[in-house]
């Protein structure tokens, strides 16, 4: 994109969103249409980078560690929107492996498979075995629990987890909690965490120092993006009330197959792209189904669509409901994704 045009977009965004958030870095991320994000934790503040930009140059030397989020592999999907989802997952893994600063682990935020078939999980496992980062944390998407109440998923990816597959772990001073919001969904509702998991989360976070950086990850967004398409979690507010007292909270989700970000006080929300196929921006299509674009334009269209939505979305589609009294500000969080 020519600089002049970029500047114009930046200027417009600045006008639209006079909230002190640096949109320039974010926009550049949006223009990149890759298949995953690298998260670098520096001083407890996660910063995302697009693969294409981070590979081939020095990554921030002061970083404490980094990890990669991938999402929505949908292994088994074979429709026109992407007839070879295994190949695009492989591309994502190749890009992860090419990152000079080796990520400590990978988080997969669900929809590993299309139909929860053993053969699909087998294929996924085979591709993931090629990742240089050997530790992979999973949460299920709704596509991973289509049969036998998710037993197949839990046997393969849920070892040591509780309930329908939730768990937490600590890594170099950062506390991670992987949540499941795709089980026991109720008619007319959106994603759901459920009482048992909420109680567990409250207990899990209790007693931790407020200075501990917290990362919550789950498949369906833990913030309401578009209720008409079920892009939200009915009881996420309860979960977020437990992290209010922490100084740095990052929420990572998938499900919507496009990048979106919101910063609310000390909580930074971010959704990842799919490794399989794009989905339309909220309300721009009859439904949230796979977006069919010519294969050679796939990545380009992804990026453009995301940017368009971000501009209008800030003032229209995304409604801010501040958790704390301080209101919406980027200052407490250290800003949005940068360096990309």
């Amino acid at each position: 994109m020519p600089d002049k045009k970029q500047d114009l977009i930046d200027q417009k965004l600045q006008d639209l969103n006079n909230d002190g958030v640096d949109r320039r870095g974010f926009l550049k991320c949006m223009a990149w249409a890759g298949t995953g994000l690298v998260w670098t934790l520096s001083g407890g503040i996660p910063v995302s980078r697009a693969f294409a930009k981070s590979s081939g140059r020095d990554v921030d030397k002061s970083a404490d560690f980094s990890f990669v989020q991938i999402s929505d592999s949908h292994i088994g999907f074979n429709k026109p929107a992407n007839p070879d989802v295994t190949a695009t997952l492989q591309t994502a893994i190749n890009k992860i492996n090419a990152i000079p600063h080796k990520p400590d682990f990978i988080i997969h935020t669900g929809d590993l498979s299309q139909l929860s078939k053993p053969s699909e999980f087998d294929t996924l496992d085979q591709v993931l075995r090629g990742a240089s980062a050997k530790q992979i944390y999973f949460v299920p998407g709704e596509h991973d629990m289509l049969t036998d109440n998710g037993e197949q998923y839990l046997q393969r990816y849920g070892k040591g987890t509780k309930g329908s597959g939730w768990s937490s772990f600590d890594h170099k001073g950062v506390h991670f909690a992987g949540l499941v919001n795709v089980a026991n969904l109720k008619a007319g509702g959106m994603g759901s965490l459920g009482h048992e998991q909420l109680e567990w989360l409250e207990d899990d976070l209790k007693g931790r120092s407020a200075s501990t950086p917290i990362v919550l990850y789950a498949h369906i967004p833990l913030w309401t993006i578009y209720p008409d398409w079920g892009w939200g979690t009915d009881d996420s507010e309860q979960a977020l009330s437990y992290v209010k007292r922490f100084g740095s909270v990052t929420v990572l989700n998938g499900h919507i197959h496009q990048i979106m970000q919101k910063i609310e006080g000390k909580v930074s929300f971010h959704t990842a792209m799919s490794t399989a196929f794009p989905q339309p921006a909220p309300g721009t299509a009859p439904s949230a189904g796979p977006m069919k674009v010519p294969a050679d334009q796939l990545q380009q269209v992804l990026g453009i669509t995301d940017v368009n939505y971000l501009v209008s979305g800030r003032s229209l589609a995304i409604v801010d409901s501040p958790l704390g009294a301080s209101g919406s500000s980027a200052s407490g969080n250290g800003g949005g994704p940068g360096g990309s």
Partner: protein
Amino acid sequence: MTRKNVWFAGLAMPVMIVMLLLLAGSPSVTANDQPSAANAEVKIDNFSFGPQTVTVPIGATVTWTNRDDIPHTVVSTDGVFKSKVRDTDEKFSYTFTKAGTYPYFCSVHPKMTGTIVVQ
């Protein structure tokens, strides 16, 4: 042995007629809240059940067809019926033998809801 065969033949005829009707594309679903003469079809398109409300007589079979690129389910909110996951072009049928209102949804995408009214 002979008697059994005759019985099967008697059963096979109406079954074949029903199948032919289904293949021909049942005209029984006309509009919402209109009682229909026979079986009904519900199409799943763009993450929605259409028609959203279908009224059928007792004994009617309703057949759902998933025409999306994404798998769906057809699950009674009250636990009366529950399909397996239905991928593209796959069908699910249920025969309603009691009068009543049967709300249902897709357990994968719970925003998708519909109602079968049996009169």
